[in-house]
């Protein structure tokens, strides 16, 4: 690279030595926690033949080339290690965790970097209540995100929405969403969200609810609406909700967990629904991960799992305000 306008090249890391040391401490703490808990560390590939179909996640792809062969294969950089880890669970691994890189195209800002570090773990036989306790022990106590005496909070998606927006996001008509935005002087929402209830929910939750969550400790939001189930089971006792939780701290989304869907047919339907949306919005259509579906069909254990953004966690542990300050070389420096 050439020097531009005589300015010296900025080669230094974006983070301080103290941050590097804290990251090393954090990783060691996580590993010792899971060792005590007898959860096994695993590694799975970040470069795979298939990729998640989530219409809201853009991925990186590349070609595998063998010299002399014209038959290039497309490989995808993983947006999360979920499918591979679930194949291990189906193969009988028992509870497992992984610390790895994940890649999401087009995501960059104070809270996003296209390459980031995920901690993902699965607990066989755990329901979401037990998983919440587990997350509290690791993030709150072992890593010290909760200060002494600070209680973590638990609130349903619906309660949180009602508390901060004043109306029920499940029963309200679109007119109520529009009306609320007019009251608070939001001139963008109608053009953005139109008639799409899920988008209205996501928009208002992200901009009006989330900033208030986890101000006094970890906040667990439970019972997401079924239309935002991702890879969570729909609740058997009330199909309006999914067994999905999100963890917030200081208004920042830190982790996402599921009571894991273990039905191959339902998973296939969700893949197909995702691909339909991708097609409608002109996004590329990746192949469906048949190996993952076969693993579900082979018998997937009853389990709960969660993924934590470790770079964001480090940022919150150190009270910093952008990922650039906790990554060695964030996108512009990499």
């Amino acid at each position, binding site marked *: 690279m050439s020097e531009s306008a005589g300015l010296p090249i900025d080669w230094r890391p974006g983070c301080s030595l103290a941050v590097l040391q804290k990251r090393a401490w954090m990783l060691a703490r996580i590993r010792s926690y899971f060792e005590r808990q007898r959860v096994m560390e695993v590694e799975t590939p970040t470069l795979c033949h298939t990729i998640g179909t989530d219409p809201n996640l853009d991925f990186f792809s590349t070609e595998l080339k063998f010299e002399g062969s014209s038959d290039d294969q497309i490989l995808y950089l993983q947006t999360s290690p979920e499918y591979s880890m679930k194949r291990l669970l189906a193969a009988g691994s028992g509870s497992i965790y992984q610390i790895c890189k994940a890649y999401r195209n*087009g*995501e960059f800002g*104070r809270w996003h970097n296209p390459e980031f570090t995920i901690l993902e773990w699965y607990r066989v036989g755990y329901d979401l209540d037990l998983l919440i306790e587990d997350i509290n022990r690791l993030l709150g106590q072992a890593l010290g995100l909760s200060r002494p005496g600070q209680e973590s909070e638990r609130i349903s998606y619906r309660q949180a929405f009602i508390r901060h927006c004043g109306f029920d996001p499940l029963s309200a008509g679109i007119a109520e969403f529009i009306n609320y935005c007019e009251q608070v002087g939001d001139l963008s929402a109608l053009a953005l969200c139109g008639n799409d209830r899920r988008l209205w929910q*996501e*928009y208002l*939750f992200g901009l009006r609810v989330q900033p208030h969550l986890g101000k006094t400790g970890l906040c667990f939001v439970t019972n997401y609406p079924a239309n*935002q189930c991702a890879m969570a089971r729909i609740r058997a006792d009330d199909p309006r909700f999914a067994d999905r939780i999100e963890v917030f701290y200081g208004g920042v989304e830190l982790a996402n967990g599921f009571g894991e869907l273990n039905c191959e047919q339902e998973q296939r339907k969700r893949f197909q629904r995702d691909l339909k949306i991708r097609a409608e919005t002109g996004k590329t259509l990746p192949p469906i991960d048949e190996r993952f579906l076969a693993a579900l069909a082979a018998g997937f254990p009853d389990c709960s799992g969660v993924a934590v953004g470790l770079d964001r966690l480090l940022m919150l542990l150190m009270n910093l305000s952008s990922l650039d300050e906790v990554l060695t070389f964030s996108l512009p420096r990499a």
Partner: protein
Amino acid sequence: MAIYSTNEFKGGLKVMFDGDPCSIIENEFVKPGKGQAFNRVRLRNLKNGRVIERTFKSGETLEGADVVDRDMQYLYNDGEFWHFMVVDTFEQYSADSNAVSDAVKWLKEQDVCVVTLWNGVPLSVAPPNFVELKIIETDPGIRGDTSGGGGKPATLETGAVVRVPLFVQTDEVIRVDTRKGEYVSRVKE
């Protein structure tokens, strides 16, 4: 004009929004792990200076605005327009009172200002950060007071009124910081 996507919205980028030229102040990428990506953007309307907050879906676009800042010398006011000239090329531009706006009280002939042009027409005028202007009227100071504490109002040759220390007198030339509208020092001629 170029089209810019939300990921290109950087501070200072000039874009058209609701028919007016605007400058991007801040752009924050907001995206839940499992949801739609948005960009929360703050823009300044360059016509009236107002700050607007809008949220865009990531990937939405705005047309660029043909807005450029140029150094120009202030020439004179003909009663309706304020005339400016690019010193190197002698190109002249006339700005109306909307464009000159609050800068009017600092404009002294031959001072070099920054004139913002939109499609070749002056949109706004920024005076130099520091100007030297003569006091045309101020109360006589109290003898012996050199501290400057408190101060008194002084009317300058351009009509601006600034607070000056008590020892500063009518007909003296003072240096003023136009960004704060504050007295800086006396200027020895």
